[in-house]
């Protein structure tokens, strides 16, 4: 192409209207395109998740149903663990995905390229988390399809229990994503991996009762007390009440979980935004937007 032609095309313009939703779409679109560039990673991830469901099926055969029923969670260990396994992917997405992505952007020098465009950095950061949510959604659907369709797990899926599950699920995302924002803000400044996010996610998975009833922790009061400090504990409890026991929003246990989760969300979400903003401002103050 000749230079004159390029100049003519570049000079043809229309007014640029700032549309945050369109920018958000651009972030999500590019992020999903990149994900499809890692085809073998995606296939391995799907296979390993489904393999873990089958593994819990066999573990469930070894678990004494009395232990579960004494805790009030029915008799199917697979139903119990499936709720934990399916949602723990989301937990990791919420807590770790953003800080991983920020590390990657700083190392790659792309964070600066984004930061000099008119996009609001919060739009960009939140857009970056969507990919993790989508992958987790695929895994979640897959896990339930394998569990219910393939291994015969039975859940109480009435409209009331599903409504309660959905609300608890949304609150779980908000409260844990707020923790993820805090971790991302700290990672941006300290640039030392994301030990906080990793620690919180691992402790959550261990202490919130993903694979065992929390009642089993009664012999360890300190651990039980720590488990009560994680929003995920309440989300799991509520979702199990709804899906395994058929509880609705009117159930006192579900209602308590929703209230606690709402409290966590209301408290953590503003803190998350403040810490993320602080992190971004700090790296602009100390000139480390491209060093990790």
């Amino acid at each position, binding site marked *: 192409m000749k230079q004159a032609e390029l100049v003519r*095309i570049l000079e043809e*313009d229309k007014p*640029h209207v700032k549309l945050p939703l369109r920018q958000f*779409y*651009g*972030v999500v*679109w590019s992020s999903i395109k990149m994900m499809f560039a890692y085809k073998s990673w995606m296939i391995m991830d799907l296979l390993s998740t489904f393999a873990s469901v089958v593994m819990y099926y066999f573990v469930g055969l070894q678990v004494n149903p009395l232990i579960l029923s004494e805790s009030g969670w029915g008799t199917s260990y697979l139903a119990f663990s499936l709720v934990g396994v399916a949602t723990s992917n989301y937990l990791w997405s919420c807590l770790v995905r953003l800080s991983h992505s920020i590390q990657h952007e700083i190392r790659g*020098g792309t964070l600066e390229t*984004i930061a000099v465009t008119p996009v609001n950095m919060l739009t960009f950061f939140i857009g970056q988390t969507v990919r993790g949510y989508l992958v987790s959604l695929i895994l979640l659907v897959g896990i339930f399809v394998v569990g219910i369709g393939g291994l015969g797990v039975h859940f109480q899926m009435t409209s009331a229990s599903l409504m309660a599950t959905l609300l608890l699920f949304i609150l779980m995302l908000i409260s844990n994503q707020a923790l993820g924002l805090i971790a991302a803000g700290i990672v941006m400044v300290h640039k030392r991996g994301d030990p906080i996010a990793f620690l919180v996610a691992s402790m959550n998975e261990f202490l919130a009762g993903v694979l065992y009833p929390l009642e089993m922790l009664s012999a360890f009061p300190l651990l039980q007390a720590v488990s009560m400090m994680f929003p995920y504990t309440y989300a799991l409890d509520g979702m199990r009440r709804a899906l395994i026991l058929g509880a609705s929003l009117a159930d006192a246990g579900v209602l308590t979980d929703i209230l606690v989760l709402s409290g966590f969300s209301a408290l953590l979400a503003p803190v998350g935004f403040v810490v993320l903003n602080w992190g971004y401002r700090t790296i602009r103050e100390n*000139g480390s937007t491209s060093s990790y």
Partner: protein
Amino acid sequence: MYAVETLGLTKYFEKKGSKSARIVAVDHVSFGVKEGEFFGLLGPNGAGKTTLIKILCTLIIPDEGTARVAGYDVMKQPDGVKESIGWLHGETGGRALYWRLSARDNLMFYAYLQNIPSDVAKKRINALLDFFDLTKDAERLVKDFSTGMKVRVMLARTFLPNAPVLLMDEPTVGLDALGAIETRKLLRSVCKDLGKTIVFTTHNIVEAERLCERIAVMDKGKVVAIDTPLRLSEMTRKFRGVEVKVSGSQEDALKVLERVEGVKRVRNVRPEEDHTVIQLEVVNEDEALTRIPESLRKNGIRLIGIQVALPTLEEVFMSLTGGEKE
């Protein structure tokens, strides 16, 4: 009005390992860049060029002073600044692209963030890919590109928003000699045709001399001089002299030149392929420019050219920055 203007711009950084000690990265820098001007920031590594250009594109928050780009204050109106600039960070050697996206998708993503309407963006992307000779590789992932190709994608991205001000940090770093020459040629001609204002950093003196209408020489965070390459040369010259190009016998020419009235001494003799360049220190350049051709002609020595001797930009740079150069 200036397209880019700074006033007392200052940035401190904490010294590594000491929270109380700090270093001045940019030290009370003031300058103005006219609309359509090609302006260079020249200095050795650590001079403060990158910090300065990053302040201009809102990536770094200054501690003191003000800066305006396209009329927008970098602190108070960062969105206005971002909508008015195209940015290229050449030092990354193509890192600042998404390697798992194709060249076209990298540009489209940037178009989304820049709020460029889709139909305009698609047209521009096609034109830029074609202009930078990337059309046949447009759908390939950038990870498979050579460094030169990655820099061309970055250049295309810089031009995509058609912003009035282009801020470029070491745009030719990582390119081979031919790639660097082509990029310089392109920057000069395209930017002139589009009427862009360009501020770019370099530690390459030849690049600064060839591209820039004016240069700010930076050292230890300070701007030590700002002017055209020619005036910077005049400013720092330490002797009055002329440079004479002659063909034929070098010895004969030297004998004649040493006898010309007003010639104090021969400073330098540089034999070239088919002629010799002789630098002379003289009492008065104007008189020397008249007398020397006459004497050479009378003695049958062929004169190819004669001009006032000015220091090269390299000598200027060394003189202004205390002898240190990259």
